[in-house]
């Protein structure tokens, strides 16, 4: 009989932590899921639409007919192929690192790229760049961008009207074009580009304009904040962009601004968490207020959060502005309040919220800042600026940088010109307007009416279908370029590899248009560098080499003087016109369009890593859904099921879409959040068929939210691959939090939560013998929950570093995802008595990976010694020894082991049709195993980390603490030691992949025996605790409890992170307390 260990029940303090609504309500389904090692079905053969018997029948016949060869018995002849000429710097077997940067609509992200034998394999932040201050953080998109380059579905050929052409024909066509438009000075030529802060691109644009002054320029981004730019233009004048300095802010208010996620950049994230690092009791920490309609990771970090529909954020801002105007006596702000004061009162917000918030902001004048989200209209941005001006934010917490791009027309203006037949040739550099342009523009028709459309794109996508020329576009790892990072510093973009498919960069096209040659090297960028570096570049070669080596030009951050806020008459009237102050009527629903966590605006749709990384809040993968609050779900009569949700139809004007709902705790009522970027109809193998397209609801007038005409349940269900139940650990005080005051009064509060107080003081003995931990270094990790924002960069970084495969939606539903690291998302409620749901729970994150237990339960049950302990404290995994019994996963209390149920690395996860003659089966390629072709494209293999084994089917795997990096460091130390005994690895000389990717330095990894190491210093924090300490596994990972910094005067402050010890309440000790069976110990 299997003994079932009954964990002692969790002491019920003031607070309940839960991960899903089912868990909160303790449904039988959830209880059953808890008992299982893997979710129901994970360990069974689910052929989807194919029965096992049918499959065996056809495939048996197929194998018999194919015959059995014995060709596999010969030793394969392998070859060694050296270069003919030595390549500079290249050493076979060694990584070579280059600085570079990644273009994003919000500035360039400074990077260091690892290349291996000429292939880029991994991307890290550049720690030397000024915004990084010694630790280079990244985000999920940057981490996954290397996979975009190797995307096997990239555009590979020059195509003219659909048929294959070549580069020279295209170049001739381009030359002909320039000659043709020289006569009209470029009239009739239009160029559409992405938002991009590249000085070289801007310089080339000026050169083209000089030659073809009447050419039209359009800069188009579907999501990256048109209203932010418009408001900055009104508020600051031309050429200045706001740059929040959150490392100087003690109080931050976000009005629908997810600055830790889609609305921010690395500088803001790092600045914010810098003020959130608390080492000793009594230290100060910043305070974050968040006003938003749906839970974002920023909302999760917030100390106080107000959930209101996105359309009412403006009304709230106005109410707040009045309070602040009164308190500060700021004339401009009170002027704005007076013009709009009458409209106030139609919307009710929780009593006291705006009042207390205003008091706190005013009390921290000069140290406070208000951030407005890019989804909000211009009026709210202007109001935010006025509030910031009144709070003295300008020059301290809010400065400015110069923008790079000259003004350009919007996609709306361009469409008008096209419809007026003013455009005869349209060059589209990258954008995909056929898919994502606002629906009222009818861009599809407009583009079809342009006689000549040249599209330079990474993929042959929706826009490419309607273009006369398709040109492959170079990825940023393939061309020479430059840009400005978030602080305005000039950074380099270096090619790591020649364009895989002969792609052209934007600069190449613009250079041709300007009458220059297509550059072969960095010459164009060098010209720009000469201008920018100016006198500093007297010795050009030395300056240029230093620039490439460092990745940035020192002291090139653009001036921050022009930060004054001009409250012009235009700004005042803009606020008045656009402010929406009406409450939503009962029964009407607001639709909010949000950037998608996985695909952003649709551009990362074909990236498997991004598709499969769970959304931090909803834990949804491979799909988008309509997020609604539990109350709204009740009102609509819809619900979620195991891996599915009821479908609703949303109608706006003539357009309607239907997509499954997902009940999201903490969502505003009467509001439905739908993410853009899914439902692409022409994309690659990964993105095809994923999600619903929401763009048809989106118009120029209401780009981010609108009130739906009708929302009705359709009666259907849609499947959703949600990972929130997977690898659940039965709510045992895993995630611990307290307030800053609790920490000051009772520094070791986290050590007495759960059952930790009941542990024997002398420590538990282990019943097994364990190998001695004799190595000079002992590896450990510390994770600070207080600075972890839940951004998931670590998860994608781990996947990139450790060659983890993607498994596909069907496999995720079966609970077979392969991420070694996961971010558990918890909700916390104080009051759940009424109807098993809390409208306003707190949200917390906890990264979970192998805890590298010193007394590891997995090791004792492995029948073949495939998982054993090393002398430096790693719980190592020898893949080639594993026979796949899965006992270890069964015995792991942290549920961190992952099993290769299929050959995810070699077999297609997409449907495949196999069979003989009329007997055919179509099923996921995984199920065919060796009976279908190995289909991992060569380009995907090129990305793999050469120092990590690519695991095959039937093998268990888990986090190794990046053992390849440990061994690399150890070997480097020993090589350096040579004929000496100095073989101790220098302190903090390397990082684990998750640690390196984390922008917040929330993860520290290193030698715990070395008192000076980062990890040892963090481990010493009184907030430290270990998971499931009472199981005596002695984990090597220490968590530091989360802290909140509530404003005691705010409504609901007492509920926040409420910490109360059970024994203080006068109850009995939790070990003996509890209902009946919770006596603890094995039965």
């Amino acid at each position, binding site marked *: 009989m299997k003994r079932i260990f009954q964990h002692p029940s969790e002491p019920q303090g003031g607070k309940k932590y839960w991960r899903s609504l089912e868990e909160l309500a303790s449904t039988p389904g959830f209880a059953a899921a808890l008992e299982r090692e893997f979710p129901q079905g994970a360990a069974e053969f689910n052929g989807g639409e194919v029965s096992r018997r049918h499959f065996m029948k056809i495939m048996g016949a197929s194998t018999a007919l194919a015959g059995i060869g014995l060709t596999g018995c010969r030793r394969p002849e392998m*070859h060694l192929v*050296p270069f003919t000429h030595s390549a500079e710097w290249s050493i076979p077997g060694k990584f070579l690192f280059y600085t570079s940067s990644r273009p994003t609509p919000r500035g360039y992200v400074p990077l260091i790229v690892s290349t291996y034998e000429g292939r880029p394999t991994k991307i890290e932040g550049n720690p030397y760049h000024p915004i990084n201050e010694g630790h280079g953080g990244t985000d999920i998109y940057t981490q996954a961008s290397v996979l975009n380059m190797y995307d096997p579905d990239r555009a590979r050929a020059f195509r003219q009207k659909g048929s294959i052409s070549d580069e020279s024909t295209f170049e001739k066509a381009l030359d002909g074009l320039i000659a043709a438009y020289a006569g009209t000075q470029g009239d009739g030529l239009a160029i559409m580009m992405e938002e991009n802060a590249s000085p070289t691109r801007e310089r080339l644009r000026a050169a083209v304009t000089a030659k073809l002054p009447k050419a039209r320029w359009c800069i188009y981004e579907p999501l990256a904040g048109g209203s932010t730019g418009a408001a900055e233009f009104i508020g600051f004048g031309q050429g200045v962009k706001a740059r929040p300095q959150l490392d100087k802010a003690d109080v931050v208010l976000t009005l629908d601004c997810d600055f830790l996620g889609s609305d921010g950049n690395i500088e803001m994230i790092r600045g914010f968490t810098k003020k959130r690092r608390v080492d000793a009791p009594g230290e100060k920490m910043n305070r974050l207020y968040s006003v938003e309609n749906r839970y974002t990771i920023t909302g999760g970090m917030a100390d106080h959060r107000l959930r209101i529909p996105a359309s009412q954020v403006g009304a709230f801002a106005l109410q707040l502005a009045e309070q602040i105007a009164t308190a500060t006596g700021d004339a401009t702000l009170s002027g704005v309040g007076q013009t709009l004061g009458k409209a106030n009162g139609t919307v009710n917000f929780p009593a006291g919220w705006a009042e207390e918030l205003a008091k706190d902001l005013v009390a921290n004048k000069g140290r406070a800042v208000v951030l407005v989200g890019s989804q909000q209209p211009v009026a709210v941005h202007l109001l935010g600026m006025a509030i910031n001006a009144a709070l003295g934010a300008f020059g301290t917490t809010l400065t400015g940088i110069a923008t790079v791009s000259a003004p350009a027309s919007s996609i709306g203006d361009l469409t008008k010109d096209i419809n007026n037949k003013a455009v005869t040739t349209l060059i589209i550099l990258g954008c995909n307007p056929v898919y994502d342009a606002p629906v009222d523009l009818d861009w599809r028709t407009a583009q079809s009416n342009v006689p000549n459309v040249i599209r330079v794109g990474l993929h042959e996508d929706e826009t490419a279908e309607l273009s006369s020329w398709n040109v492959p576009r170079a990825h940023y790892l393939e061309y020479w370029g430059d840009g400005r990072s978030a602080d305005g510093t000039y950074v380099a973009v270096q090619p790591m590899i020649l364009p895989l498919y002969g792609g052209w960069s934007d600069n190449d096209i613009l250079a041709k248009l300007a009458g220059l040659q297509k550059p072969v090297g960095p010459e164009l960028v060098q010209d720009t560098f000469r201008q920018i570096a100016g006198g500093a570049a007297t010795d050009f070669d030395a300056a240029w080499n230093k620039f490439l080596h460092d990745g940035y030009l020192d002291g090139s951050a653009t001036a921050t003087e022009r930060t004054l806020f001009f409250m012009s008459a235009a700004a005042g009237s803009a606020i008045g016109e656009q402010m929406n102050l009406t409450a939503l009527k009962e029964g009407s629903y607001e639709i909010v369009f949000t950037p998608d966590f996985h695909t952003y605006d649709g551009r990362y749709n074909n990236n498997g890593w991004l598709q499969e990384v769970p959304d931090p809040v909803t834990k949804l993968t491979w799909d988008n859904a309509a997020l609604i609050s539990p109350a709204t779900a009740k009102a609509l009569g819809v619900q979620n099921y195991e891996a599915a949700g009821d479908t609703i139809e949303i109608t706006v004007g003539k357009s309607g879409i239907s997509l499954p709902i997902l009940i999201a705790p903490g969502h505003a009522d009467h509001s439905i959040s739908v993410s853009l970027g899914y439902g692409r109809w022409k994309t690659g193998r990964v993105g095809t068929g994923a999600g619903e397209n929401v763009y048809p609801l989106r118009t120029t007038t209401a780009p981010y939210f609108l009130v739906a005409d009708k929302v009705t349940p359709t009666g259907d269900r849609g499947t959703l691959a949600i990972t929130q139940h997977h690898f659940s650990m039965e709510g045992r005080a895993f995630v611990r939090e307290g307030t800053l005051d609790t920490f000051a009064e009772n520094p070791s509060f986290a050590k007495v939560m759960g059952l930790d107080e009941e542990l024997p003081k002398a420590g538990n003995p282990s019943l097994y013998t364990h190998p001695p931990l004799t190595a000079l270094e002992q590896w450990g990790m510390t994770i600070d929950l207080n600075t972890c924002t839940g951004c998931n960069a670590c998860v994608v970084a781990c996947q990139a570093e450790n060659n983890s495969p993607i498994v596909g939606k069907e496999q995720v539903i079966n609970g077979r995802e392969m991420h070694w690291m996961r971010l558990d998302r918890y909700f916390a409620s104080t009051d759940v008595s009424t109807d098993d749901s809390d409208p306003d729970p707190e949200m917390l994150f906890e990264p979970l990976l192998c805890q590298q237990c010193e007394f590891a339960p997995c090791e004792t049950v492995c029948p073949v010694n495939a998982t054993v302990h090393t002398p430096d404290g790693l719980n190592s995994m020898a893949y080639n020894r594993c026979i796949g019994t899965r006992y270890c996963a069964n015995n792991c209390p942290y549920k961190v082991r992952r099993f290769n149920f299929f050959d995810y690395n070699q077999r297609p996860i997409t449907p495949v049709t196999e069979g003989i003659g009329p007997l055919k089966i179509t099923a996921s390629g995984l199920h065919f195993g060796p009976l279908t072709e190995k289909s991992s494209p060569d380009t995907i293999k090129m990305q793999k980390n050469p120092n990590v084994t690519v695991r095959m089917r039937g093998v268990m795997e888990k986090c190794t603490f990046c053992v390849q990096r440990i061994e690399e460091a150890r070997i480097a130390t020993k090589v350096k030691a040579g004929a000496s005994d100095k073989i101790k690895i220098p302190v903090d000389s390397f990082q684990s992949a998750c640690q390196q990717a984390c922008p917040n330095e929330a993860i520290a990894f290193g030698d715990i025996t070395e008192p000076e190491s980062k990890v040892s210093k963090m481990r010493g924090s009184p907030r430290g605790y270990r998971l499931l300490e009472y199981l005596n596994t002695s984990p090597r990972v220490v968590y530091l409890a989360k802290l909140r910094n509530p404003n005691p005067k705010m409504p609901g402050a007492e509920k926040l992170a409420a910490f109360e010890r059970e024994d203080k309440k006068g109850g009995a000790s939790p070990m003996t307390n509890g209902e009946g069976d919770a006596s603890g110990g094995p039965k």
Partner: protein
Amino acid sequence: MANFFPRWTNWLPLKVLVILFVLGNAVVAGVWYYFTPKYTRVGYQPVQPVPFSHEIHAGQLGMDCRYCHSFVEVSYHSNVPNTQVCMNCHSQIQKDNPKLEAVRESWKTGQPVTWIQLHKTPDYAYYNHSVHVNRGVSCVSCHGQVNHMAVVYHDQPLSMSWCLDCHRHPENALRPREDVYNLDWKPSDVNAKAFVAKYGKPPGEEDRDFSKDDVKLTQQEIGLTLKHAWYVNPPENCAGCHR
């Protein structure tokens, strides 16, 4: 009717079966044990596209291993030289030797010479050359006396147990660093007096007098001394080689 078969024949089929079973197993086990090599790659000697002789280059001419295998001290791989390295000399020496046709062809066309890989560890074993040669393990320990091979062959098994033998007893392979690339080195070549002065006396032989000229050191003594002096502790856990 009388019995056709005597009584003893009742057990005959069973006895025959048992004897056949035992004999069959003995034959299989015997062939397995006595007729198959310990490791099938030993002796592997493929014909290379260029008949390059290590015997001439490393043996007769006395070229250092590192002239061609230039990254052995810094990288995982001990690289195969690129065509440029061959042409450093052969653009002047033996310019018209027909044996070098493939090299000249490669130099002209830019297409590499495809050498046949001889030594191979499995994909899941991450062997690193640099750490071995820098810590006193000679090429000869794994590759044999390549300087006496006209055509290189696989000399040692390179199996896991063979690796572990050495990782458990590194003293059997360690030598002074300056002799790592001296493939003809013998322990008796070592001047005991100078060696002891540099690295100390072998552990356990602190009382012995090494000052006389005729004192010879054994491999064991040299290895143990170096192991002690350099704190050599090769990994014996899985993660040392498998990731």
